[in-house]
């Protein structure tokens, strides 16, 4: 098991100009670590569909590297997306799954068959060009740079500690963050895309 914040710090060293989106409880760390917020984008908004939105972005921007930090609870809600991605084969798509084996945002309840599922094996079977699994930070740090040079679609599964949030919704403190619409506006401006 690895701390999510350590994963993001290690990734940041090799991020380059990649467009990055992060979902799930762990994904909230990214905005505090990223040094290129104009290339960060929020794609949440419907249960389990962040991966599809990131995939669509990668297909639409074939000259940009698109990195998705996904969560296993989200992926399980729309698991067919791994077949969709594998079928379309976007070479610029990097799908990094942060697997904390639970719904951390709702109190830490386990996802179905939490400890036994092998997501990298599923992605490999679906047809991703390359898949990797990590349970140790040192291995991740050693390999993430070369993984980001691979031809996609690439799937990386990482076991992380759950950061369970269990306070009632109304009592949770939210850090200020740009809205989805604001991140979309900023990314399109960065890339010179107009309506």
């Amino acid at each position, binding site marked *: 098991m690895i701390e999510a914040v350590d994963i993001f710090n290690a990734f940041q060293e090799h991020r380059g100009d990649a467009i990055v989106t992060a979902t799930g409880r762990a994904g909230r760390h990214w905005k505090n670590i990223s040094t290129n917020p104009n290339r960060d*984008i929020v794609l949440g908004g*419907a249960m389990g569909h962040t991966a*599809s939105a990131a995939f*669509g972005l990668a*297909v639409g921007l074939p000259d940009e590297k698109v990195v998705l930090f996904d969560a296993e609870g989200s992926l399980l809600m729309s698991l067919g*997306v791994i*077949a*969709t991605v594998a079928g379309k084969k976007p070479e610029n798509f990097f799908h990094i799954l942060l697997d904390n084996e639970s719904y951390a945002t709702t109190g830490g309840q386990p996802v179905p068959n939490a400890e036994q599922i092998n997501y990298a094996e599923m992605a490999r079977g679906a047809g991703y060009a390359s898949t990797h699994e990590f349970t140790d930070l040192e291995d991740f740090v050693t390999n993430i740079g070369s993984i980001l040079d691979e031809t996609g679609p690439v799937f990386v599964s990482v076991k992380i500690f759950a950061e369970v949030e269990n306070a009632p919704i109304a009592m949770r403190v939210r850090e200020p963050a740009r809205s989805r619409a604001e991140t979309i506006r900023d*990314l399109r401006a960065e890339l010179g895309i107009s309506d």
Partner: protein
Amino acid sequence: MAQQQAQILRPETLIEEFIKNGVTHIITIPDSETNYLYELMVNEPSLDIISVSREGEAMSTALGLNIAGKVPVCLIQNTGMLESGDSIRGMALDAGFPLVMVVGYRGWTRHGVTPDTAATYTEPFLHAFNINYYLVEEDRDGDRITAAFEETRRTKRPVVVLVGDEYHGFNR
């Protein structure tokens, strides 16, 4: 015979409307009614076909493409639209981008008796989501597709084209 031909919605008409409106990507799950259309789309070089695994993926994939400056269309059946409610809400209605969804109107009988509940709930579903729609049944209805594109570009809200031709032109 000529009149009969005019009453058949030709898949070629949809392709022409897509090209006319600058469509770049078709996000779809093929169904039995649109098989010939699928074959035509695959052979049209200006259209990139994305086959998704479940209809709810279509709206979110479209959002990503829209952000990238592309012009996607979602081509699904009404049954899949019914399954996609949260994706339509969060990835289309709340997103503020144009999006035409071409929806096969399974069970549409034109005479008010709809034993297939897929048809029974199709229009009430669209009313509940406050999504405008255009019914296309015959080839001469083709310009309603461009009307849908014009509306979605103007409103930046999803607009549906209901294809009510289950029993005529889309199967060879």
